């Protein structure tokens, strides 16, 4: 009871939860992480409470697990790895601190979801470089910290984009602001001279935000983040290009991105595209899927402030020329799929239930980064693994996202399954454990390793493991932040 009293003193009376139902909800997720019940759930409302909490955790040796998104969780990173942990639920920190049209920057707390921010941005003539259809409960800050891929590669200059600056309470309880937000002065003082917290790197001779991103909450708790936005287009024209050959579409992606001709640019297989488009009143999933070719490239061409029609016109002509050189043809409709409809879904408000769980109740994603020349081979490896584990390949969703202006490609294989079917679940679990090595040997880089992949990934890179442990020791010397994740075992 002493702990509860202490927590109540720090966070507030109604913000410390410990009913069985509430704790059970955080003891597991849709991944195969071992269920471990947390001791409390706390809901801080401001940075000061978070800082006091982290200091208290250091004094008492209590593990803290920061969680900003609502359920369902998929990766196991929010499930405690040890007993006695406290879930720090940041979903109540829901302030939009600033939207700066001139400098294309928004600053939000971790409880803000995509649906919270998008309409506010639109009012100011801005938009986000979005991940592909995040769930409606997904925290925007959480998505940025996880380095989730985004759909407009030409505006993705660096893998860290569109995250700019952050405020963080490090594992030792110190407050820090990364990048140009560090100072001099507080946010208001910086705004007064026209600054906008837009430089992610820094301050000075280090890039502190890179150490926070991808850390799964092991370095500290982020209490706000600034986000690079783009101007909202005046005109937007969507296109599909179909092919049975992935390599042809990848070649076209290279030309379209290098020519800075397209905004959204992504590849889906027929399974994923059908799942995204299926909805009440439309043909059933199977009807849509069978009407589609194996691979579909989706891209948009936009016109903005100056002569938008002229820009769109020449970019349609130039992109079509590239396509035709490769024997491909841009279209607006493929079978039962409309490019306009996909555009509406991608840029519209995120709906529930999430498209990935709508199909069978749950899903498991195998995802990694690689280069375009390896993707066909990696696709074959993944399909072979699926066959070996009795997973029906036609049911596997595939999403390929060019990143960093076409330098790397995010590859995501979604295995839809029924969580109440023990045999299907066992098969997916087996696949999750066996896919790593064959894919890594084929050139896949698991830059965001969750669950058991972390162990596999760090086994391949001992020096990085040593380096990261040094950093962990610096920022979280008592290992209170999400212990047991990545390479930070107790």
């Amino acid at each position, binding site marked *: 009871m002493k702990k509860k009293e202490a927590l109540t003193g720090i966070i507030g009376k109604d913000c410390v939860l410990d009913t069985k139902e509430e704790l059970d909800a955080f003891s597991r997720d849709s991944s195969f992480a071992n269920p471990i019940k947390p001791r409390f759930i706390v809901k801080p409302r401001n940075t000061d409470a978070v800082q006091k909490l982290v200091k208290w955790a250091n004094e008492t040796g209590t593990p803290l697990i920061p969680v900003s998104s609502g359920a369902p969780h998929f990766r196991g990173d929010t499930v405690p790895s040890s007993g006695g942990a406290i879930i720090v639920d940041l979903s109540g920190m829901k302030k939009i601190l600033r939207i700066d049209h001139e400098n294309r920057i928004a600053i939000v707390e971790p409880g803000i979801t995509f649906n919270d921010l998008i309409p506010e941005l639109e009012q100011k003539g801005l938009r986000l470089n979005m991940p592909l259809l995040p769930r409606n409960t997904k925290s925007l800050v959480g998505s940025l910290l996880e380095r989730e891929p985004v759909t407009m590669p030409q505006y993705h200059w660096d893998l860290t984009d569109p995250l700019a600056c952050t405020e963080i309470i490090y594992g030792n309880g110190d407050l820090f602001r990364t990048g140009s937000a560090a100072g001099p002065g507080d946010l208001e003082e910086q705004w007064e001279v026209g600054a906008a917290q837009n430089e992610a790197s820094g301050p000075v001779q280090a890039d502190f935000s890179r150490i926070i991103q991808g850390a799964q909450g092991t370095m500290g708790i982020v209490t706000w983040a600034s986000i690079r936005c783009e101007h909202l287009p005046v005109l937007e024209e969507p296109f599909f290009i179909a092919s049975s050959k992935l390599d042809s579409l990848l070649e076209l992606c290279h030309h379209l991105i290098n020519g800075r001709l397209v905004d959204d640019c992504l590849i889906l297989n027929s399974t994923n595209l059908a799942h995204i488009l299926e909805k009440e009143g439309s043909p059933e999933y199977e009807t849509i899927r069978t009407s589609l070719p194996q691979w579909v490239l989706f891209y948009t061409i936009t016109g903005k402030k100056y002569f938008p029609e002229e820009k769109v016109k020449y970019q349609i002509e130039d992109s079509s020329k590239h396509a035709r050189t490769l024997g491909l043809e841009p279209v607006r409709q493929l079978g039962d799929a409309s490019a306009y409809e996909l555009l509406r879904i991608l840029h519209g408000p995120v709906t529930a239930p999430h498209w990935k769980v709508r199909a069978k109740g749950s899903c498991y994603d195998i995802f990694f980064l690689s280069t375009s020349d390896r993707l066909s081979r990696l696709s074959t490896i993944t399909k072979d693994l699926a066959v070996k584990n009795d997973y029906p390949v036609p049911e596997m969703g595939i999403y390929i996202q060019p990143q960093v202006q076409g330098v790397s490609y995010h590859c995501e294989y979604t295995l839809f399954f029924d969580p109440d079917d023990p045999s299907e679940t066992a098969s997916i679990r087996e696949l999750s454990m066996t896919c790593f090595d064959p894919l890594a040997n084929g050139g896949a880089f698991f830059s965001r390793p969750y669950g058991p992949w972390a162990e596999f990934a760090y086994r391949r890179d001992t020096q*990085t493991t040593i380096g990261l442990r040094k950093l962990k020791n610096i920022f979280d010397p008592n290992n209170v932040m999400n212990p047991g994740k990545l390479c930070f075992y107790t």
Partner: protein
Amino acid sequence: MALQNRDAYRALEDIVSPENISEHPAVLDSYAYQWGAALFTNTPFLPRAGAVVLPGNTQQVQSIVRACNKYNVRYKAFSTGWGFYSALGLDETAIQMDLRRMNQILEINGKSMYAVVEPYVTSGQLQAELMKRGFNLNIIGAGANCSALPVAAHQGLGHTSLSTSYGPRNLLGAEWVLPDGDILKIGSVGSGAGWFCGDGPGPSLRGVLRGPQTVMGGLGVFTKAATKIYPWSGPSQPEIEGISPRYSLKDMPKNMNLHYVVFPSWDIFIDAIIEVAQAEICFAITRLAPPMLAQGLSGNNDEGAELLIKLQEQIQDRPGFCLIIAGNSEAEFAYREKVLKKIVADKAGSFIDYFKDEDVKREYIWGIARSTIAIREVFRATGRFLGSIGDSSMFLTSFKMMVAGLPLKRQLQEKGLVRGDEGLDCIWGTPIENGHNGHAESLVQVHPTGESWQAVMEYSGRCEDMAIEDKYPAPVTVWGDASHDKWGPHLCDYHLWLRKFKKEFDPKGVSEPAMYISAEGQK
């Protein structure tokens, strides 16, 4: 003075063989002779290192670093070198590591838009290979003769950073001999997947390796790195004419154009440059003050002075910037030109006639694309420069800070302590990544005297004080303990974290910290 520790010398000689190590005073002086040395010694020379060692590969670098740890000898590596940064802090108890034998372009991957280089590959060399394949890279303002390694330059900004970004964001995978001699491969290359990614698995150690500024020789040695490359719309094998230093494209590319545009006031100029940057129409935007233009477009100082008069007749003190438009198709090129004209008209701007001459365009397009004119802009008049250097977050704040510091600079000029710039501003700057970020510098051409250097340092210091007072972002010239201690308390005490990095990654403190930070702080 030879390296004091003779056992260390013999160990180093064994590693690289006698022909790749020297302690001859003449050789050592060639490293100690640095523009800017007068700032510290009132002479053109910094203190000599104990020896210079030239490793030929990563394994030799590793062995040298391990020997330095064993014998407690400080070391500082440099690649192509540029200024006092590469040698500051050395003396007869320390060694200089010259990486010139590591000069290979290891990979150009056009499909994945990166190139992997060793430290002594220059940007000019890499660019020549890239252009043949339709690609380009970000070349720092210090020139095409500088290393293409995106962890070599102290910052990594250049005249084309609008479309080719800059150092901290162009770096991908990297090979890093840590201060204790272990080899760390950053990102995907550490997992054996190639050089295409610099982050992960999990948190990124790229965060320790550099920020907006690099660690400048103070945290081990970078032996290979991948840099992001960019599309190049210009000729793949450009024909060049002219003689050094005034090379020029022989033919004017049909899909490229260069303009110099001016505006009625500083405020409108800033609005306009940001508007043009955000319109995504330019290959390069570079704010060049008239004295810089004149020096960049002339063969010597006298010609430069004459040209400045001519330019000023047209520019008439109006703030302006230079830009290059490039299009991948006729329609794209026409569209971009049309947008530019619209913005310039909307902002009551004017195109300067001198830059309508095709000869000028050909020379300046090549000079900016190749980053060959930048050095003339700042160096030729007096052979050295320094100044007030802004940050890399925003053009607006960086530029405002430079303008605010102009009265201080004028005081130095009026006293004759630094070159006068003919009463003009000499501010350089560029928006970065289509205007998401930006940078500006107020350059001062220093006379070759200790008094002049001290004056300009005082000016820089006062500009920094002003930035702290007025809450402008930190400049990209914060290095060494004293500077970190000055800025750290105003920037969330970052310097205390930096010292922890130094302590953890360099437990013996042998990687020379004069341009980075020491674990223990100022003595």
